[in-house]
Each structure stands twice: as structure tokens, then as C-alpha cells.
């Protein structure tokens, strides 16, 4: 029997029972659709995560933060239990006292990102670059206008950052004595016109790191109560006045006594002397930068943070901050490690955490999320499996009925020369064809659904996470199609085995008996 006939005869049999074939195929199609969709989403999400996380080297980035590390405490020798008691009782009481003593004593030490620790991080194997991120509050003085300001470093390392410059230039080196001002900070200190921005370039900005309190010790309000709160501009100006007033008392026409009284009053009730300025340094203003645009905000998560008033070059910022004894002890807020290869990220994370510091990396996130995805997609695949199983039961039942209905036809085929194996093969192929057609239709349906499905997920991610995904979250590599068809054809062939054996065992004499 020719191969073409092994295909043609079952196909024509299916075609002669169109409605039954359609209904049977629908069940397989549904199972194939769910299986294809779940495999496609699984593959697509993994590809999307890897694609998105490889942007800006984020997949090789490890963020390190201060942590805590347990320390050995030798308290056992200190605890003695006096009194007359049995040795067992003494041991029990001593054990509880030791535990209490340990709980009271600090058994963990703070692990800060100090200069020596930063150096040791930079020397770790597989580390290409270590970028300390300095951040904090300072007092910035342009001309004679001191202003509280937030400062950070690190943004200068980001290749995307220069796009946000609206005047001046980016840093040329990591240790130059330059500073970039944010557009809003410039506006706050009175640089309103575009020409003001150009004129401030090259001017010196003094940065001071002071003690806890570095603002004015009193408020100035307007006499008109209805306008006491004042507009925003008025508030800023009044604050500047309060700031500068203590240093300008001598210029007023006051007696020495009045000046001394005011100075004492402005120092505060505690009469505590103002904290001396810890660190001060001058930087040249080289540029003005704007905030993120709406488009840039979508990928802001992958870049260095740069939403402070001032940005300093990395080494200059570290030098400035570590000149302050308090900051020398506290260390920086975080450091970014760039690993040479994504394969080594996990090893670096383990080493960082062994040193007592905390870390964050996209690889850890992926590992954590992968388990969630595995559970979800495993569930979906189970649903697909159940759907195919149910479909196979339907196929077995339908084919059994078909064999019973076609007994005479089977008898005729035997009478004209069909052997048992030929008949069995024809029925098995008939079942397999249902699986093949249903599988193909299911794949087509999954592929069609992927377009609106992908658009919906993208809109959700953009709305909730401000991330613009590139590429589809559905993926249809060749192996998915092969897997789906393998399962659908396999399941339907197995379902057809018993009916096909029944067909082969039909007795032609009985089947052809003339009634």
C-alpha cells in the first residue's frame, strides 16, 4: 500500500464526516492553543527580561548597600550562677542567662561602605568597575546666596546623562573640581532667564557639609496675617533673609547691646554654639541639566539616579564627603559594581553578602521571579495537558463509534484485500490527522491571540512601571510548534490505538452477512 494512500484514505474518511471531524478537532485545538500559549509566553517573558535587563549593562550591575554582620560575643565566661543547687539546675539557669546576656549585647555590627571597604569591593575578582554613589544634603552658595541642596554622584558615569544638559558641558574626568546644577535648583536660586544660565557657567559654587542643623534658626513672616503663608517666591526670599540676617547684624544701625542681644537670641535657647562647618570646597559650575523627559522616565530605572540639585564627579564627591569625619565613619549610601560577565554576578553577590553588606541585582530578581513564572506556566501547561487528555478521550469514543458504524465498510475492505495491519494503520493515521489538524489550528490561534495580548501587556507595563518594552512578550521559536504538534499527534494516536485494533479484528463474514 502506498504512503499517499495511507494519508488519502483517512483524510477522505474524515472529510465524509465533516461535523463529527470538526467537533473532535475543536477539542484538540483548544488543548493545543493553551499549550502553545503557555510555552510561548514562558519563552517570550524570559527573552523579554533578558533583553530589557541587558540594556545599559544592567544585567551585570550589582548595587551594594551597607548591612549588618553578626559578631562573636564571648559572654559565656561572664555569666556565673551562684547559690546552692544541683549541677543540672545550675546548667539550665546558666543557659538561659547566657542567652539573655547575648540578646542584650549587640551581636551585630554595622558594615558601612567606608573608603577601605569600597577599595576592597573594587579589588574583588570579576569586578570591572566600582562606582560609589555619594548622596546627601549640603549647603551650596552661589555669590552670597546660601541654599540647601541635595547632591549626588554617579550620574556623570551614565552615557545617557549628557543628553539632559541644556547648557555647558558634561564632566571630562571623574576628579575634576566641577559641578552641574539642575534646572530647578538654578531657578530656585534666581537664575531665571536663559542668559542667566549661560552667565553662571564658569562661576564658583561653594559646597559646605555642615552639622545636623544647617538652616536658619528662625522664621520671618509677613505682618499681614492673611498673607502670612505667602506665595512660594515670597517664602523663598524670606528664608534667604532669615539665613543671611545673623551675619549682617553689624550693618544695621543697632547699639552694641542690641546686636549682642539679637545674636544671643538668634543662637537659640540652648545657647549652644553653632556646629562648625565640617567641610567646605569650591567647584566650578560647568553645566545645567534638566529633569527626565516622559520618554526618558520610561527607562530611568536602568540608569544612575540623577534627580538631585547638584551632581558632582565621582571621585570629587567621594573626596569631599570623606573629608567629613562623620561621613568617613558612615561611608557612602551605595556603590555600583560592574561585573565582567553575567555568569559571575551570582558569585559577586555571594561575596558581597559574606562581607556583611546588602546587595541588589537584576540576576537575583530574575532568579526570584523565575520561580513564580515556573509555577504559573507549569499550571498553564497542566491545564493544557488536561485539555488534551479530555480531547483524547473524546477522540477514542468518536473513533470507537466510527468503527462500529463502519463495520460493513471494514468488512468490504477486508474482502477486497485489506490486511489487518493496513486497517489498523488507517485508523491510527485517522486519529493522528485529527491531532495534526487540531495542533496546527491551535498554534495558529495562539499566534493570532499573541498580537492583541502583547499590546495589552505592553500597555499595562507602560502604565504601571513606566517601562517601554521592546519586542513581543510572546515568542514562537520552531521548537514550540514541534512540541505542540508532537503532543497533539501523540495523544490522538494513542487514543486511536484501541479503536484501530477493534477495526482490525472485525470478522468480514459477519460484517458482510446479507440481512
Amino acid at each position, binding site marked *: 500500500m*502506498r504512503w499517499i*494512500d495511507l494519508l488519502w484514505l483517512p483524510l477522505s474518511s474524515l472529510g465524509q464526516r465533516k461535523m463529527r471531524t470538526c467537533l473532535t478537532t475543536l477539542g484538540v485545538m483548544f488543548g493545543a492553543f493553551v499549550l502553545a500559549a503557555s510555552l510561548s509566553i514562558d519563552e517570550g517573558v524570559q527573552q523579554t527580561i533578558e533583553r530589557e535587563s541587558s540594556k545599559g549593562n544592567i544585567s551585570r550591575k550589582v548595587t551594594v548597600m551597607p548591612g549588618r554582620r553578626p559578631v562573636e560575643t564571648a559572654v559565656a565566661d561572664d555569666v556565673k550562677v551562684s547559690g546552692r543547687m544541683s549541677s543540672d539546675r545550675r546548667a539550665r539557669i546558666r543557659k538561659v542567662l547566657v542567652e539573655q546576656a547575648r540578646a542584650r549585647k549587640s551581636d551585630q555590627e554595622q558594615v558601612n561602605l567606608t573608603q577601605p571597604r569600597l577599595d576592597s569591593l573594587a579589588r574583588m575578582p570579576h569586578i570591572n568597575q566600582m562606582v560609589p554613589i555619594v548622596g546627601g544634603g549640603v549647603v551650596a552658595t552661589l555669590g552670597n546666596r546660601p541654599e540647601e541642596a541635595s547632591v549626588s554622584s554617579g550620574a556623570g558615569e551614565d552615557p545617557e546623562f549628557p543628553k539632559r544638559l541644556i547648557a555647558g558641558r558634561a564632566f571630562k574626568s571623574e576628579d575634576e573640581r566641577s559641578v552641574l546644577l539642575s534646572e530647578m535648583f538654578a531657578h530656585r536660586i534666581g537664575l531665571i532667564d536663559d542668559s542667566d544660565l549661560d552667565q553662571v557657567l564658569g562661576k564658583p559654587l561653594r559646597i559646605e557639609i555642615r552639622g545636623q542643623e544647617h538652616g536658619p534658626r528662625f522664621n520671618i513672616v509677613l505682618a499681614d496675617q492673611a498673607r502670612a503663608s505667602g506665595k512660594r517666591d515670597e517664602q523663598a526670599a524670606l528664608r534667604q533673609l532669615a539665613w543671611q540676617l545673623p551675619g549682617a547684624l553689624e550693618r544695621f544701625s543697632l547699639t552694641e547691646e542690641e546686636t549682642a542681644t539679637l545674636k544671643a537670641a538668634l543662637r537659640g535657647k540652648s545657647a549652644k554654639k553653632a556646629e562648625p562647618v565640617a567641610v567646605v570646597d569650591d567647584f566650578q559650575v560647568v553645566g545645567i541639566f534638566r529633569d527626565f523627559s516622559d520618554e526618558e522616565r520610561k527607562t530611568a530605572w536602568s540608569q544612575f539616579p540623577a534627580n538631585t540639585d547638584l551632581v558632582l564627579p565621582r571621585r570629587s564627591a567621594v573626596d569631599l564627603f570623606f573629608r567629613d569625619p562623620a561621613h568617613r565613619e558612615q561611608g557612602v549610601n551605595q556603590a555600583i559594581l560592574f561585573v565582567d560577565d553575567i555568569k559571575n554576578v551570582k558569585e559577586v553577590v555571594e561575596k558581597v553578602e559574606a562581607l556583611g553588606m546588602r546587595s541588589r541585582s537584576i540576576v537575583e530578581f530574575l532568579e526570584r521571579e523565575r520561580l513564580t513564572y515556573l509555577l504559573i506556566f507549569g499550571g498553564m501547561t497542566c491545564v493544557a495537558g488536561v485539555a488534551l487528555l479530555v480531547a483524547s478521550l473524546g477522540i477514542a469514543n468518536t473513533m470507537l463509534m466510527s468503527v462500529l458504524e463502519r463495520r460493513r465498510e471494514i468488512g468490504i*475492505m477486508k474482502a477486497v484485500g485489506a490486511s489487518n495491519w*493496513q486497517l489498523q494503520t488507517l485508523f491510527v493515521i485517522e486519529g493522528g490527522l485529527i491531532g495534526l489538524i487540531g495542533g496546527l489550528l491551535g498554534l495558529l490561534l495562539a499566534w493570532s491571540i499573541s498580537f492583541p495580548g502583547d499590546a495589552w501587556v505592553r500597555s499595562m507595563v507602560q502604565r504601571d512601571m513606566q517601562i517601554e518594552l521592546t519586542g513581543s512578550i510572546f515568542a514562537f521559536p520552531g521548537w514550540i510548534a514541534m512540541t505542540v504538534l508532537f503532543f497533539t499527534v501523540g495523544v490522538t494516536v494513542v487514543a486511536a490505538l484501541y479503536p484501530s485494533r477493534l477495526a482490525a479484528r472485525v470478522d468480514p463474514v459477519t460484517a458482510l452477512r*446479507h440481512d
Partner: protein
Amino acid sequence: MGSDGDSADGVAIQAAAVGKVYGSKKSQVEALRGVSIEVAEGERVALLGKSGSGKSTLLNLLGGLDRPSSGGLRVDGRDLGQLSGRELARFRSKSVGMIFQSFNLIASRSAVENVTLPMVFTGRPPRERRAAAQATLESVGLGSRLHHRPDQMSGGERQRVAVARALVNRPRIILADEPTGNLDSQTARQVMALILDHVRESGVTLVLVTHDEELAASCTDRVVRLVDGRIADESQRL
């Protein structure tokens, strides 16, 4: 008996003490009891008898549709008892052509598809078998009904299709089980004439099962009468 398909001795059919029993031990039916018969090549033999005499059972055994419970059966030089299931299927396709009282056509297939069916199972190429089927249908007067289904034909036309199917593989033996039983007398004569013409032209052996004594006497060389599963008598046509 050998199983090499060689009938050099001129005997097309040789049955030796063939018996057939149906049913379980509790309800056995002995359809044939020690039937022995020889049919020469090209001979036309009628198996005559009432309903239940065993004539259809004997025909089914001769056609390889069933196996005897006892005795030996040699058809077209082949010992049917020695053949495997696959060899028996091939025998049915190539060595014998069977015509049934109820036509036994596949209702969902056209005339030409029904006639090509025996050739499908022997692996003949599609183009060849289509041509052979068309020629055979034309030879039985159904050249204009190639693509009609059985429900679109009369009884006589359906039986002609069945005759064409039996002849298409050029078997050496034709087995006809009451081929005119479902036809009116005129159509019956036409169909019978068709069968006999072919038999005469090609020199094939014919075994005709019938309960019609007149038909048996007029269309065959020998009449074998069966009663209760045994051969009661044989009469040669003069």
C-alpha cells in the same frame, strides 16, 4: 498440500474433507461437514442448496474470508491453511474476485473509487489503477457513471460496479454469492450475462452460489448440491 501458488495440474480449487464449525461448545453449529470438491481451471460450477445448506460458508472459505475448522483447502495453487493473515489478504485481492448478493459497495465512495479499492491494497500506482478502473467500468457499461455514488444508481448498476470490482485485478477465480438475488429477473439476466461473458472471454474459473436451479443449470458446467453441510450430489451439464 503445497502453498506455492502453482496450479500446474489444472485444478483451480481442491477441497479435501473441509469442515467448518461456528459458535461455542455449548451452541455449536456445524456448517460444513467433510466437504471434498475439485474444480478445474476455467470450469463453471454452481453450488446449489437451500438456505443453511452451507454453500455460502464454503464460498467464504474458498475466498479466504474465513478459515476451515478442519480439512485442507487449496485454491489457485495455494494452500490457504498455510497462509499468514497478510498473505491471505493478498490472496483475496489478487487471486479471487468476490461478488455478493447485497453488492457490498462502500456507500460514501463513487463507482470508480469502489472499483480501485482492491488495487489500493496491492500498491498499484494511482494513475494506473484509475485507468484500470475506468476501463473495467466501461466494459460493464458504466462509463457514464464513474463518479456516481451507489445511492445514485439502480440495483443493476450497483451490481455491475461490484462485478467490475471483482474483475479489476484480473483474478483467476470468480466467486459469486447469489449475484442476482436482489435483482429483478431482467436485470438479473443482464448481470449474469455480463459475468458469463467475462468468464468465457478470459477463461477464469467461476463458482456460483445460488438457490435457483434453472440458473445453476443454464449458466454452469456442473452443479454441486449441498444439503446440511454435505455434498449430496453432483450433476454434470450435458
